């Protein structure tokens, strides 16, 4: 699963996801893409599940690009522990995704295959998404 190699600080504030994506809103590598329509924290596990769904569906052909990276650590407290006594331990990594962000790109496959692959991938992700196509692509 994706995670940073090293970080400056172990724990981060929870934060909020405001506004729309400012960059990464257009296709940059492939002919097809999956765009987020709502803000969400996407875990490394979800990214991996979506990637796996795509690569399994396209089988032999094509190339996949992942354009989000989970660089925010999320901490949790153990079960049955009272509030206070410090922040919990980091448990997993998430990517903060704003609406409009292209999360995955795909190339080298026919459009119908790409659409189905992204439909399967979308089921693994925590927000609504849409399928996008390169300008001029039929």
């Amino acid at each position, binding site marked *: 699963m994706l995670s940073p190699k090293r970080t400056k600080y*172990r724990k981060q504030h929870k934060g909020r996801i405001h506004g*729309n994506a400012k960059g990464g809103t257009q296709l940059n590598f492939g002919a097809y893409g999956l765009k987020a*329509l709502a803000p969400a924290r996407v875990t490394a596990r979800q990214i991996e599940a979506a990637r796996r769904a795509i690569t399994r569906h396209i089988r032999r052909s094509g190339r996949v690009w992942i354009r989000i990276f989970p660089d925010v650590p999320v901490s949790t407290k153990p079960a049955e522990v009272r509030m206070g006594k410090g922040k919990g331990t980091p*448990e997993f990594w998430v990517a903060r995704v704003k609406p409009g962000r292209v999360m995955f790109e795909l190339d080298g496959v026919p459009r119908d295959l790409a659409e189905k692959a992204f439909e399967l991938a979308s089921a693994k992700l925590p927000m609504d998404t849409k399928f996008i196509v390169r300008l001029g692509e039929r």
Partner: protein
Amino acid sequence: MSDTTVISAEPRDRVGKGSARAARREGLIPAVVYGNKKDPQPITVNERVLMRLIHTPGFFATLFDVEIGGETTRTLPRDVQFHPVTDRPEHIDFLRVSATTAITVAVPVEFLNEEECPGLRQGGVLNVVRYEIEVSCTPDKIPSSLQIDLATAEVGDSIHISAITLPDGVTPTITDRDFTVVTIAAPTVVQDEAAEAAAEAAEGEEGFAPEDGEEAAGEEGGESEE
């Protein structure tokens, strides 16, 4: 040479986000026509017409005759701004062109004989490095597309710009190297499956793997810097 398309537009009296938003609410897209040593002219274009044109291949390499109040201006679309979420066009730039000035334009690449390509028939993947090639030419010489014949391309082959015959008066803007346009890559399915199986096996034991390494790095900041 690319064809010229006629597009009708209305002049825009007011500029700024208020009037631009008002135009968008009415199904019009704010645009501007500029260049050729004349003052820029704000205009609006019908959204439906524009949407159809934007999604045709080679939109940025097509000359447009913009009709503004009975007057026609020959232009080239230079930029389209899209809404990040809805992908609706929000603004478009048209550059006035004269017949003599050389312009830089991105021309789409078209692939011929994909079905007959031996490399693709063996399971290779068409890895397009550049969907568009930037060329420099006069407006009347803009090619509608640059064609690449894949009839003899094998797995592992790379097709560079030198393999493409450009029309007279058309030169690529990148001249310092023979850049790659497309490659026929070998299928990677065998590696992928092996890697996936290994990843799945490792995942069962994993948990929050980076924590240990990162803990050491985070708490002993001085050491980690080294």
